[in-house]
């Protein structure tokens, strides 16, 4: 399998603080991978580097054999990377369907002024876009909520809507930052299945950050562990679970044993 995303020696510093340190990562196409690590390890920072929110200080990021580091976020998105945010960032005063329509932006092609005389092309495009948005809404299980304002949706629904919005641009790679934070175990289970479903149905490569080990260990094929910005371990969930460094820095004895015990 080819690598869809490669980060090579990425370093990002804030003042004196090295948030991401000489980090190298390969993500195989059509895989589900996770990045885990203690709080403040630099996981979100790494996502921000990939999506163009941050400029990297050193290193390169290659997506589909194209360098994308330090490009503007809209450019990166149009190349096929979408993401969600650790603290949900929906367009909160827009309805669910409008959020998804905005997400479709990179796919729409008509000249903006055509809207004034409603050219045929424009009408067709709008129609299909709406169709597609409804489909996505159904896909994430929010049917019937299209006209609800994003801010009024329950928390879990907002997470799902954020994913739907990210999917709307037809990404090849989806970055999920703690998709199950703030969900109870039940909902977490649902989300896990949903992520798997995404990959299986749509063939999207998924990279996620999570602190919930049942999610991480349940669905990832590859787990990378960051600590103080540096990679301290990488491998299959099994390997990671028993890696003493990881247990020491991140899992803690209790969680590690809990995981083993709870293994199905």
């Amino acid at each position, binding site marked *: 399998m080819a690598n869809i995303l490669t980060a090579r020696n990425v370093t990002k510093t804030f003042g004196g603080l090295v948030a991401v340190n000489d980090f190298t990562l390969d993500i195989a196409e059509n895989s589900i991978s996770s990045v885990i690590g203690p709080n403040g390890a630099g996981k979100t920072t790494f996502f921000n580097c990939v999506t163009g929110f941050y400029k990297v200080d050193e290193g390169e990021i290659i997506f589909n054999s194209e360098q994308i580091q330090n490009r503007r976020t809209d450019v990166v998105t149009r190349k096929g990377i979408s993401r969600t945010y650790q603290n949900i960032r929906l367009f909160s005063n827009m309805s669910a369907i409008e959020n998804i329509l905005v997400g479709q932006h990179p796919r729409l092609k008509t000249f*903006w002024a055509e809207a*004034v005389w409603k050219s045929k092309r424009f009408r067709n495009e709008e129609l299909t876009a709406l169709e597609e948005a409804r489909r996505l809404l159904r896909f994430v299980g929010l049917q019937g909520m299209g006209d609800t304002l994003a801010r009024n949706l329950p928390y879990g629904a907002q997470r799902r809507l954020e994913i739907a919005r990210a999917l709307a641009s037809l990404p090849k790679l989806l970055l999920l930052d703690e998709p199950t934070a703030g969900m109870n175990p039940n909902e977490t289970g649902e989300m896990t299945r949903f992520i798997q479903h995404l990959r299986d149905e749509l063939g999207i490569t998924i990279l996620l950050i999570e602190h919930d080990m049942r999610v991480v260990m349940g669905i990832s094929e590859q787990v990378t562990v960051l600590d103080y910005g540096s990679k301290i371990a990488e491998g299959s969930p099994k390997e990671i679970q028993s890696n003493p460094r990881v247990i020491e820095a991140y899992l803690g004895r209790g969680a590690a044993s809990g995981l083993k015990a709870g293994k199905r």
Partner: protein
Amino acid sequence: MKINWKTTLRYGLIGGVSALYFSMIGMVELFAGRNLIGTTVNMGHLLLYGGMLAAGLLAARAHHQGKLAQHAVIGLVAGLSAAIPTALLVILHEFIPMQDVFVSVNNALIRFLTFERGLPGLLQFFLASGLLGLLGGLFDGIPTDYRRAVGTGLAGVAIVAVFSDLVTQVLTNLFGRASVNIFFVSKALKPVIALVLLLAIAAFVFMRDRRKANAPAAVAAAPLDKRAALRKQVILFVIIGALLAIAPWILGSFLSQVLFEVGRFVLLGLGLNIVVGYAGLLDLGYVAFFAFGAYTMGLLTTTTNLNLGGGVFNFWLALPIAVLVSVLFGVLLGFPVLSLRGDYLAIVTLGFGEIIRILALSDWLKPIMGGAQGVLFIPTPEIFGIVFDSPESMYYLVLAAALVAAFVSIRLRDSRLGRQWMAMREDEDVAEAMGINTVQTKLLAFAIGAGFSGLGGAIFAARLGNIFPHSFNLLISINALSLIIVGGLGSIPGVIVGAIALVGLPELLREFQEYRLLIYGILLIVMMLNRPEGFLPAEVFKRELHAGEITEPAEVE
């Protein structure tokens, strides 16, 4: 029920302070010169004793219920106490002349307050105040349906009398000058007419309320089916369209001129609405583009000033050029502010607006722009032998332009571009991460907004015939911003309502001169406090406000 004297006195004092305020700023005296009903009731009375009436009414209302006699007592006490502050002023004036400092506390005011009788006249003043307070208290006590009827009637009479200009103009246009004299003496309603009007309105309201109350509730609440609703809407549109089309004939030249002014600000508002309402970019220098439109029109069509193709272009040729120039400058001035957010943007755009005005005024560019002497002799538009030289004809021009702008606004709002703007307004970073080129999106907002404004400017120049830099000052930008927010940010009908409220109304209040802007300011505050979302808010903004809770949701990174 026990009477709460403290509350009563408090309301009395509030009324009294307002009466004192209006007296001390000279409003009472000036308004006293404007008769409302015959020569007996003038606007000074309205302003002064309105406070007493309100004090009585509110004090009584604060007591919830009680016997009519109690209402009367409360009202009387409130009214009397409301007279105290002003009375003190009168007494003080007797001993210490204050006119050197408080210019409005002059003999004329004192004469008005004391019924021309000097200090003894204060007795009469107290009497009048107490009476009004008593009436206010009683008013609160009478049964609701009577109260509504009488209240509406009184308000109706007051409105007709205050805005008699409007009424007389319409009457003159429809039935000739003579008809005015049936109802009015000079600007005041004839007493008999006032009484008839009061009774008519009151009777009407009373009957209507009765009918409504008797009608079975179910019928009133029955939802209209969709077809009927649509039909209703179509009819409404037709009526509005017809009214717009014949307005100048009904209204006559002055009111057409007012409509022209409203139309000009509707254009400005529609453009600014795109920038501020849709794209969320706070622009305080919006007048600059209006100036570009006006100056382009002026310089291209006039033969004086510089001979920059002077007279080569006629209005119709210059119009698109003016719009284009504005659009161009919209983009150019958009560049430097691309990276700025929120209030930084506001001040920089404000700065641009001022720079443009200062340059237009400057001696440096005088050879081109005319400096302080402005651009004179801009020809009136003309086509197929129709000369647009009157407010009536120009009204149609501005109406057409506003319709076009509104149409374009609506179409864009409902398109991808509209969504881009909205997303950018909500969260610029995320919008960009959605693949939206925010640079382009912002520039488009600036450019289109500038285009509308330039169009307005060009028409403005043609109507005025001469333009001066002073016509493009900061207040225009502020007014445009206020009107779109008062109307309801992001809403197109809102722009129109806002323009009528903040441009049309003050024009009708022109005779109140120096207090026009005071009224304008107070109006802005009152409107925002009562309807922060504006008169006709767009959906999005209604949502934003009515999520209201005690605290804002904490924003956490």
